């Protein structure tokens, strides 16, 4: 069975900033108060000279080069090869939050109810039952389209073939996202900068070599002892062993 490459194609200019997708997502995924799996950038506009204003819906971009996966120490976050989504295994997640900082889109948050990192997974549970992601099915203007890019007959594949589409990626971090924007995408700013947490870097750069050295040295010592034991089975204290009362020694 061919692998899927699930993606969203978003027609941002048709977004009304009605918050339907945010509400639908929150209910569908039990997202705790104050946290959101998806967003509308450029919402609640101040008055602008240019019109029409473009609101830009978004969510986790299920990147092909996910920095969050790189930052996860436990492998709880991984790229699902079957459908291309970036997944969080909640039982494996230790809630360290390294992936939060590592995501250049701020797509991740700490689910305070569950104590784990959380983010959009294209509504994996709904998809199991043949339902579209909640944000997609609820969207009044159907700004959000969802499907499999590997399926040439899917709506998203057709849209990408027929239209110019851009990805609104964070310039500082190249992640190859899987959300495509049709037409004028709207805001391009990202308030978040991806970074690896200090502790993570310390681990990677310093702690890891040091630990390896310590364990290595111990190992070497033990090996030496073992070698000696094998090589010199009859090692005994010299005759002037003094206080050592060797008499009884076997």
């Amino acid at each position: 069975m061919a692998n899927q490459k699930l993606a969203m194609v978003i027609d941002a200019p048709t977004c009304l900033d009605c918050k339907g997708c945010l509400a639908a997502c929150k209910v569908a995924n039990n997202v705790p108060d104050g946290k959101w799996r998806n967003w509308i950038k450029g919402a609640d506009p101040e008055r602008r000279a240019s019109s029409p204003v473009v609101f830009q819906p978004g969510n986790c971009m299920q990147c092909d080069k996910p920095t969050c996966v790189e930052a996860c120490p436990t492998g709880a976050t991984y790229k699902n090869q079957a459908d291309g989504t970036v997944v969080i295994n909640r039982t494996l997640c230790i809630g360290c939050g390294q992936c939060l900082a590592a995501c250049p889109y701020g797509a991740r948050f700490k689910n305070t109810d569950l104590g784990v990192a959380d983010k959009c997974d294209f509504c994996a549970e709904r998809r199991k039952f043949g339902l579209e992601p909640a944000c997609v099915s609820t969207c009044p203007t159907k700004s959000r389209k969802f499907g499999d890019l590997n399926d040439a007959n899917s709506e998203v594949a057709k849209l990408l073939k027929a239209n110019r589409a851009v990805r609104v990626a964070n310039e500082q971090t190249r992640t190859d996202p899987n959300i495509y924007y049709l037409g004028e995408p709207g805001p391009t700013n990202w308030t978040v900068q991806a970074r690896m947490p200090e502790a993570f870097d310390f681990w990677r750069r310093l702690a890891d070599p040091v630990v390896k050295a310590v364990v290595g040295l111990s190992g070497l010592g033990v090996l030496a002892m073992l070698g000696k034991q094998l090589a010199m089975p009859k090692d005994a204290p010299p005759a002037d062993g003094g206080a050592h009362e060797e008499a009884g020694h076997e």
Partner: protein
Amino acid sequence: MTSSLDQKISRRGFFKLTGAATAAAALGGSDSALKPGAAQAGTRLKPGFESKYTVCDMCFNKCSAIARVVDGKVQKLDPNPKFLKSRGMLCAKGNAGVRQQYDPDRLKYPLLRVGARGEGKWKRLGWDEALDLAAEKMKAIGEKYTRCGFMFMAGADMQSTFIHRFAKAYGSYNTLSHESQCLIAGTRAFLDTFGEVPIPDMLYAKYCLMMGANRFEALVTPDSIDMMTAMKQGMKLVVMDPRYTKTAAKAHEYYPIKPHSDMAVMLAIAHVLIKEGLYDREFVAEKTYGLEQLAKHVEPYTPEWAATESEVPAEVIVKIARELGAAKPAAMIYPGRRSSNYRDSTQVRRAFAIVNALLGNWDRPGGLTAARMVGLGGGVPLEEPFYENNPADRVDAGRATLMFPEEGSFKLARDAVLEANPYPVKGFFCYHSNPMQTVANRAKTARMFDQMEFVMVMDVAMSDTAWMADLVLPSQYYLERLDPCSAQQGSSACACVVMRDPVVKPMFEAKPVFWVMRQLANRLELGEHFNFSVEEFRNAQLKDLPGALEALQKDGVYYNPSKLYGVYEGRIYKTKSQKIELFNQRYADMGLDPMPVYRKPAQPEADQFRLVVGRNAVVTQSSSTSNSLLMEFQPTNHLWINPAAAKGLGIEDGDWVKVASPAGKQWIQAKVTDMTRPDTVYMETGFGVLSPQLAAHGRGACIAQVLVDDFDQISGNMAMHETFVTVSKEAA
């Protein structure tokens, strides 16, 4: 018992269920055919979840929805892709319906007031006790003050019909709805122009001028959605609004028009259309009455004149008129909905209607279309009794020129009650409506309640109105209810029927209002009028629609295809002249302006602002501001004030300010923004909640407290934007 989708949904079954409706294809991808997805671990939707149709009740739009139920609990509400009126969508409010169902603030059992009115001291009653008491009070008040001495109010609910029925059976003419707070001026204006209230065919419009409406925030199906689709198909949207709404943000052109000058712009557009011969000559000649009079009438209303009134530049008005003329007949002045703005709102909307008539867009694609009746019956017929000792008419009769006898006017009825003129009204029953929050001049509403001998309120939560009641009855929420059918219309989208079956078991002691009405009827010897079940009522409604019930159970919606355009070919218009009346003969006969006359509106003094109110896509007035999900989007309201004005008053963003009008005062945090004009301040509806038993209590300010209760002189519609306020940085 019929329960629409009561079987466990297999994957295949689900595909069938959500297969997109044929017409949806035309809408550029509201195709919700489901894509198979990879199986992944999850805990939310367990296998075997049930999908049941319901009809959303988070606002008046009545969108068909699918409830996903697990272990008897609603987990999620999804849009019904086959429901074309909503274009298969469910908005943020619709999604938040789940939270409302399980809201900890819900009323659990009947409560009797034991302290002073509004003091919040209650005693729990059993239903029998509560109903006995209510019946006794109704009987006593009916006998003492005639049956018109008991007033009934019901909001836009699928069971409201039973309250009207009860009122008729009981013998009171005094029934109120929310409509005199909302739309009757617009209804009046279009009825008195076209002989009926049109439905805009937004989907196929090529040009739309929107004034007095905020369709991208105050969602109306299908208009809000179709407007975007139409824009994608090339429609030009021009918005005039004193406030930079999201509709303005999405418009191609936006003009911050001076409030209460819409009529001036509209008359000037008519002026240009006629002067430059841009109107639809053939249509106007054939179908309208009074072009000559109109031509003469708008002669002095030049764009230059209108520019001074509206602050919309003359060349813009000319340009818009020309663009409208070029795009006609698929060009429209959006008729709008809420028109509770000014003393002359009917005439303002008449001006909208007249320009539409000049554009010849009536009964044509992309214009204003005629109502399409789906053929839903009236249910079990009512043999309305007549009580000889009743007064001749409603208590508010005659207080405005052309009121609707079914709707009346809350504002005028309240005045009449307070004056006890022409007769006293001493009992009040309110269902699914919250006048304490929504009706201008809250102090007066409170006074009206004070002079009542018995106030009974039925609602899902302790609303501000319930807080003022003597007896509070817990209502079932829509997900628990079996409701009659409701007919829906929406231009090209539909003429359809929806109905509601219970999705979950009722919680606590909550009951449907039908049951309460029936119980009361039995106690008042009016049982014969309620001698049926809701199912029987529904079957009677559907008797002329074979196959409807099956369609409703299978698809959640029943359509009755009918002609959309050209409905009036060979038909007369239901007006006095039997034509579209540019010149309204009846108005002339009654001494009203037969064509809209612009009278310089009162303007705020130098230290005053005009207060305008409105809502957005996450707030349905007061019914949703306590919703825990929607509250996250909008925890409170703010007073929008222009930076120039704020600077003069020393107000900075986030400052607490006092807003005061002759009606009352409120304290609220300022939002300093150039999204409102320097002469206009804005507040959202639904905050400043009195009732401490609602989560929204203590958040923001209440519009009802500061709005002045003026009214539209023709329809009796509340005129809320005639309110001038002072704003000061002053501690509470």
